[in-house]
């Protein structure tokens, strides 16, 4: 088990190296003048100034030199101050947001994390639970309902579902507001009396003992959570259901019944752990889907997370910001896939012990 985890972890830097190469490759589609904007804030006054900057940042050097420089930046020989270097967290400067990309991520990511964590809960537990129940009640009304539900879910794009939900609950019924938090609370949150423990508003509001803020935050998040999780719910339901149906036909399930175990134990102790294997693999893939959903959901609900920010920057041709977010998203994907792999090994002894 430990060697398996170590092997997985050793792979992380290798994959990340590949990710940086890929992104750096994309950067090369820009000409040096565009790339210079990674490093500067103000628009240079003359062509000569730009040329000077290009030479200063080595944007006319061979690619591998530039790549290395992009990775580690460089140190000013006089002041000993390092500038640039994605390895040191410098993703460049966001023109459209007037702040370094790294700061932008730091500000916006907690909002996205807040949303996705709340969305993952229902996805995993409700989706899987529904899938198991549907499989156990194969071809009964419950199963039919679940199937209709999952067909609608997998065929309705996030943006359509999101807009429908927005129209119904926000515009027509006026039950839920868009955005992050009501104005009255947003002042309190930025004031000194409110401590940011985790930067996740829903959790911080509870930690601060402000249940009223928590309710307000959740009211703002309910629709995005619903939208973001709906497609994944449906997918998890479908995969869990079919995997469970297949498992229930396996001979070892009959063995378990032949031992005299109750149907409950047969389902939950013998069949379910096996049925979870394909679902775990799916979890790895669906993180990608979830991140795609984040962009759409946040944009539809005007929710200030990294997804909406990246979409807006892209619309304004702010390449540097988009690349910074891409790199960051790549990092999240790699890390979460390692977690999924470890999880898989944890439930499947054939992987763990081989």
């Amino acid at each position, binding site marked *: 088990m430990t060697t398996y985890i170590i092997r997985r972890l050793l792979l992380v830097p290798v994959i990340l190296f590949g990710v940086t190469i890929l992104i750096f490759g994309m950067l090369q589609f820009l000409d040096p003048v565009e790339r210079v904007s990674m490093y500067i804030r103000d628009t240079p006054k003359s062509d000569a100034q730009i040329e000077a900057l290009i030479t200063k940042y080595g944007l006319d050097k061979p690619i591998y030199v530039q790549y290395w420089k992009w990775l580690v930046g460089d140190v000013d020989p006089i002041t000993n101050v390092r500038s640039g270097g994605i390895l040191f967290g410098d993703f460049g400067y966001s023109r459209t947001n007037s702040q370094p990309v790294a700061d932008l991520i730091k500000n916006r990511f907690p909002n996205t994390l807040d949303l996705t964590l709340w969305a993952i809960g229902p996805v995993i537990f409700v989706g899987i639970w529904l899938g198991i129940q549907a499989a156990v009640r194969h*071809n009964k009304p419950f199963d039919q309902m679940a199937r209709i539900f999952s067909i609608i879910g997998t065929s309705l794009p996030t943006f359509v579902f999101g807009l429908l939900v927005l129209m119904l609950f926000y515009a027509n019924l006026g039950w839920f507001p868009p955005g992050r938090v009501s104005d009255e609370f947003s002042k309190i949150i930025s004031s000194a009396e409110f401590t940011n423990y985790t930067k996740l508003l829903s959790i911080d509001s509870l930690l601060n003992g402000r249940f009223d803020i928590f309710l307000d935050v959740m009211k703002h998040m309910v629709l995005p959570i619903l939208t973001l999780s709906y497609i994944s719910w449906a997918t998890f339901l479908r995969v869990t259901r079919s995997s469970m149906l297949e498992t229930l036909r*396996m*001979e*070892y399930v*009959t*063995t*378990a*019944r*032949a*031992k*005299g*175990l*109750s*149907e409950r134990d047969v389902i939950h*102790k*013998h069949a379910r*752990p*096996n049925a979870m294997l394909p679902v775990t693999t799916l979890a790895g893939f669906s993180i990608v889907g979830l991140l795609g959903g984040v962009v759409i959901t946040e944009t539809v609900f005007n929710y200030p997370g990294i997804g909406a920010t990246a979409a807006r920057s892209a619309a304004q041709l702010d390449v540097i910001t988009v690349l910074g977010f891409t790199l960051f998203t790549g990092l999240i994907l790699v890390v979460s896939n390692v977690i999924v792999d470890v999880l898989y090994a944890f*439930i*499947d*002894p*054939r992987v763990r*012990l081989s």
Partner: protein
Amino acid sequence: MSNYLLDVQGLETTFKTPDGVLHAVNGVSFGLKEGETLGVVGESGCGKSVTMLSVLGLIPSPPGEIKAGKAMFFGHDLVKMTNAEIRQVRGAQIGMVFQDPMTSLNPVLTIGRQLEEPLMLHVGMNKKQASERAAELLEMVGIPNAKDRLSDYPHQFSGGMRQRVMIAMALSCSPQLLIADEPTTALDVTIQAQIMDLVKRLRNELGMAIIWISHDLGVVAGLAQRVIVMYGGLIIEEASVNDLYANPTHPYTIGLLGSLPRVDAKERTKLYSIEGSPPVLYNKPTACPFAPRCKWAMERCWKENPALETVSPEHRVACWVDTKTGRAR
């Protein structure tokens, strides 16, 4: 009252399929005395497994349904039992071993855990007692270093060893009856022989009755006292082992024995095999289901289904033809 341990009468089981209702078992009756070993033979698809699964209430429903019949075990009808009642029988009084040891053990649970389960459920042992007993059981079926191997998973065992584990599991609560559904079919010949020896030894030590399903008459001959031959969801011949091999009477049995390679064959005889394949029945058979493949078939065989008739003591056959003379019985 019968003096049988298990007394099955008129068992009928069907499956709803997209092509119609499949009649898998069409009125099977047999009895089994305490400590007796009964062989059940027949080609693939003739209803051997479904008969035994019906007895244990393990037919998936839907699509399966037991239409008629009873299976008396210690004065109670297994067919009529509620789920809760029959669970007290499964694993405790009747143990079952399946054909493919590669798929009949749960791949994500340890061998120990799977062995302990019935002990904790039926015998009321706690975890520690069950684990000690599980090690003894593994030792009993001839697995070395039993204690250390409890924490292993099925994929760390070979096929033969897994089948030993299955046997240990089926016998863990000292059942009066062991049902083995082609337990050696998936194993190679040397391992097959080892498993047979193991079962013979355990039968002597524990004295349980055995129902041994196989489509290999040779395997059954070495183990059983009595044999039933099934065809088309029916029993078509029943006799003691010696009688059956000496005087096979039903054309199907004769065919089966003919297709058995014999070591003592005088000359190189061509291996006989029955032409055609067993029927898939979408109606309850009204004629003899074997008639289409039978070289003795007469007019009557196509119109009426023969019932089991006693032809000599302890020897029953369902056939209109006297295969010794080739004329109607």
